[in-house]
């Protein structure tokens, strides 16, 4: 975009810019998510709890709470967060370690939650914390981190948090997401390209080697359940009754959806075949019920949302605000991409939820808080004369 165009664009906007487009997209996704959640979870909820709206009610409560948080954050001047990068950093780290205390508790076989009146997933906090920390860090030392060495050092700052999420809460997907968020933020903040493609190539290379070793049986899958997931990814039919079950059922759901799907509420795969379909696998039920058309529509909504982030970042009144938006954009786009990739078996199965749609209280509240940040940044956009 040229400078001229940009000015014209800005002129069209009123003073005290507030991105209603983004707000509308978010509200649409939330409502759509609740409808889909009810469709997907009612059967299992009825079986398990005798109340088909069990999950819906909990999610509705979390959503309303999340909207309140979002509105609150929107009207807080986002520069407030600029003053507390270290608080954000160490709070994130500290909460993760709280999982080890009696406050931590386990569900579905993983110790990822802490209970402080309500249950909270420290990884979700860490994602916001990292976005704030790196936005503040980069905007402060912008010029100085452009050498390769200091770039690597900056990226390295994310490692303690990502590592503790991986080791303490055994949550590989959150660790990857955090690392990717940081990588994307630094990528935007620094002028280089080559190095990042190199890093990307190295990471892909390592992953390929691991996959190769596992598939050849050199790294026995007894070593880690993740290795068995790799095998299930490569050959889901062979592991149809074990690790490949969820993925395969998800593929069946997608494949049986056709162009326009079976119709809302008509999924068969949600009837006990896709375990906990309201979590990671909700997108496959969307495909089954609404078909490729519905799935594409949802993807377009996310693209629209990310495009709004792009606009807001480009027009943010300062670098900190812009980087905040870039962080949120990175977060949401990575999660959507990885979630759909898992559902379509493009990558090995790992627990990643679909933002705004999947079931999960912590996730929805912190996502809405992030949207609050973005809206707050958009409110700070001033018109140029």
């Amino acid at each position: 975009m040229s400078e001229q165009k940009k000015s014209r664009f800005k002129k069209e906007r009123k003073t005290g810019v507030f991105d209603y487009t983004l707000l509308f997209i978010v509200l649409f996704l939330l409502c759509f998510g609740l409808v889909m959640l009810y469709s997907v979870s009612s059967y299992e909820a009825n079986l398990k709890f005798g109340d088909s709206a069990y999950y819906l009610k909990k999610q509705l409560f979390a959503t309303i709470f999340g909207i309140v948080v979002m509105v609150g954050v929107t009207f807080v001047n986002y520069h407030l967060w600029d003053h507390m990068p270290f608080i954000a950093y160490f709070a994130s780290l500290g909460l993760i370690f709280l999982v080890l205390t009696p406050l931590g508790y386990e569900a579905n076989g993983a110790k990822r939650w802490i209970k402080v009146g309500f249950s909270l997933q420290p990884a979700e906090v860490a994602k916001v914390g990292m976005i704030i920390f790196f936005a503040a860090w980069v905007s402060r030392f912008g010029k100085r981190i452009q050498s390769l060495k200091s770039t690597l050092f900056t990226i390295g700052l994310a490692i303690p948090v990502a590592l503790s999420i991986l080791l303490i809460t055994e949550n590989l997907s959150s660790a990857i997401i955090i690392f990717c968020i940081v990588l994307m933020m630094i990528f935007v903040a620094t002028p280089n390209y080559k190095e990042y493609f190199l890093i990307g190539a190295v990471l892909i290379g390592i992953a390929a080697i691991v996959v190769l070793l596992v598939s050849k049986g050199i790294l026995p899958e007894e070593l880690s359940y993740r290795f068995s997931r790799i095998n299930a990814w490569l050959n889901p039919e062979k592991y149809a009754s074990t690790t490949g079950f969820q993925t395969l059922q998800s593929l069946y759901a997608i494949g049986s959806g056709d162009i326009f799907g079976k119709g809302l509420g008509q999924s068969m795969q949600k009837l006990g075949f896709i375990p906990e379909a309201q979590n990671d696998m909700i997108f496959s039920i969307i495909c089954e019920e609404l078909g490729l058309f519905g799935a594409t529509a949802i993807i377009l909504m996310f693209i629209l949302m990310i495009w709004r982030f792009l606009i807001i970042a480009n027009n943010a009144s300062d670098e900190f605000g812009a980087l905040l938006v870039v962080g949120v954009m990175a977060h949401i786009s990575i999660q959507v991409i990885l979630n759909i990739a898992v559902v379509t078996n493009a990558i090995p199965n790992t627990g990643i939820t679909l933002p705004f749609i999947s079931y999960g209280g912590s996730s929805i509240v912190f996502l809405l808080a992030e949207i609050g940040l973005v809206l707050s940044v958009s409110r700070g956009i001033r018109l140029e004369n």
Partner: protein
Amino acid sequence: MKNRKPEITLSKQQNDKRFSMRMQKKLAVLFALILVAFLTLSVRLFAINRDNGEKYKKQVLSQQEYDSVTLIAKRGDILDKNGSKLAVSQKVYNVILDAKKLNSSDGEFLEPTLQAIYSTGISFLYTKEELRDFIRQNPSSQYRVIAKKQSFDVTSPLMDMLNNPAEYPDIKGIWLEDNYQRQYPYNSLACDVVGFVQGDNEGIYGLEEYYNDSLNGTNGREYGYLNDDENLERTIKPAQDGNTIVTSLDVNIQSIVEKHILAFNEQYKDAFREGNGSSNTGVIVMNPNTGEVLAMASYPVFDLNNPRDTNGLKVEMPQMTVKDANDPDDPEAEENAETQETQETEETPQTEEGAENAGTATMMVSPMTDPSLMGEAYEEAFEQAKMEALNALWKNFCINSTYEPGSTMKPFTMACGLEEGLLTGNENYRCEGVLNVGGHEIHCSNRLGHGDLTFSGALENSCNVAFMKIGATIGRSTFMKYNKIFNFGLKTNIDLAGESRTDTLVFDESVMTPTDLAVGSFGQGFNTTMIQMITGFCSLINGGYYYQPHLVTKILNSEGATIRAVEPRILKQTISAETSEKIRELCVNVVALGTGRSARPAGYMIGGKTGTAEKLPRGNGNYLVSFIGFAPADDPQIVIYTVIDEPNAKEQASAKFATVLTRDILTEVLPYLNVFQTEELSEEEAAELAEKQLLFSNGSTLEEETEEETPEAEENAEGEAAENADTEEEDKEEETERKIQFDPETGYAIDPTTGDLLDPETGRPIDSNVSDLADVTTSPITFVDEE
């Protein structure tokens, strides 16, 4: 920020901090990369649909079928003629454990759930500890039956908990599965007739097996299907409950019959040899005018609610010697054997106690068998022996056992001769106690001979010699023709499972010898079943109509509507009404004047015929005694057939065992059926009857009924009774007066042909092992006898 003035926001410092063009460019690159990723995934979605869509669609549909739920149908009831329930299906619940769900949330539900379910009073298959171990070892098990067939009362507290997840949030991984439990409210009553079920309502023996399909109904299903719009719809095909069958059995008559059978067997228990009062006792009561079975019982019985209970069952182990397992030369082995024998005896009292409780027989374990020494082989042999004993117990003696009928055959033989005009009923016979047929000496039951007998007298005294002569008169082919007419050798096709075939156990006309004909004429040499005999006998006395014997009179659907009514079915006319009339008279004479006297219940006149069949091998002193009769004499309402196999007595060869049992049963059954007394009661009889009523009925209404006497009957009966008494005595004197030689030392009579010592009163050999048929060896199946 909003309030800041534009000048400040446009300051250089602020401007430096703005998102630079370079960064915007990189952000655009990032956005492009993200778009590429989204595009790739969209293509992937499209590819999945294009490449595998059809396959996955089918896969989804085929999976869906597994989701259907079976709705279990209720098995129909079995009722007696008055609607009393002999067998019912009660709704029960299995408790299922889903360990995977129970283990969820870090096992926080485990203890509260265990605590809760064990406080409900349900009897679980495992203790709490065992269950905990199981859950630990099988954390992913999702279906484990932990309590079976619990009644509603017992499970209702658990149901309440499961229906209130809000109140009991900690109870997880437990659910209830509906089922039906077959119950027999009368326990062992009519056990052989009713049969029982095993596994998933598979009927075994009796009505349960014969009517299994009709009783079972059809399980329903809850399933999903696709409608025209390819939308999934769930639908329920309800279970079709099974049909109820109404039988002709009368619980009251059945109870009376079983009570007396039990009393008889208790009385003779361990009387001569150790064990039951008889090796088997069977009684059938039938309506001769319809072929409906009113009662059918045998002994010993078993509890239908617990058919596999071996307590009190006599399990005879095959002989296994300790030497098989030990070196015979090793003295220690013998010592061991001895010690173990002692242990064995110490253990036995326990089993004996159980046996007494069951009131049947004692568990016999061979002293030479020892579990610790024999190990698996012993276990196996014991299990096999146990199964054999159980199978024998479950079989219905009345339709399953084949035996030589003995003299109860004689009315059939006579009917054959009369119907064909070969006999007139005016014949006279002379009995010398023995007859030589085809070179074989065949004895009469009275070895001294009955002397001169009229046609009726031949039957009254059950004279074998006379019947051998009758048999010769009738001839082989006519005799066999009538055997076929009376259905001997063919199944009656009564509606019970397990009726025996007798087609290979009857004479083959083409190879039949005169000796076979001779013994066949008095019911030896061929086999029948009880149901064949009584069905044939009904036709002898009801005017010649051979009815299809049956138990089920009506089949009702689950709503109680009749879907099939079984009308009495005449299969054929066996003899003419005139011959039937004649046979009835002859049979009445048997009870009035002859061997059946002791079968007559006080106050009634009945007709019938006794039987004392000598069992194979001959000369072992084993007999099957029986009585077949009808009551009342002038208008038969019921036919009763009583068979006692090997009564537990030194002298088995007395039909008295059967006649007395019959009399006891009839004394109670006839008043119950509202049959009026026709005979005057002598003082003795009246006293005896009063005594019996006390003994039989515990304050039931039967007592009052029997005491009612019609003055008419008294008058009519007076003369007759006196007459009967006279004739009886005269007959006896006549018999014993004839040329008898007495053994000077013992005072016993001497058999003129063999020299055996005889009882002068009855003419029976003193040695109970002397066979009347000792000389008969020619035909493939051989023997004889009768009182």
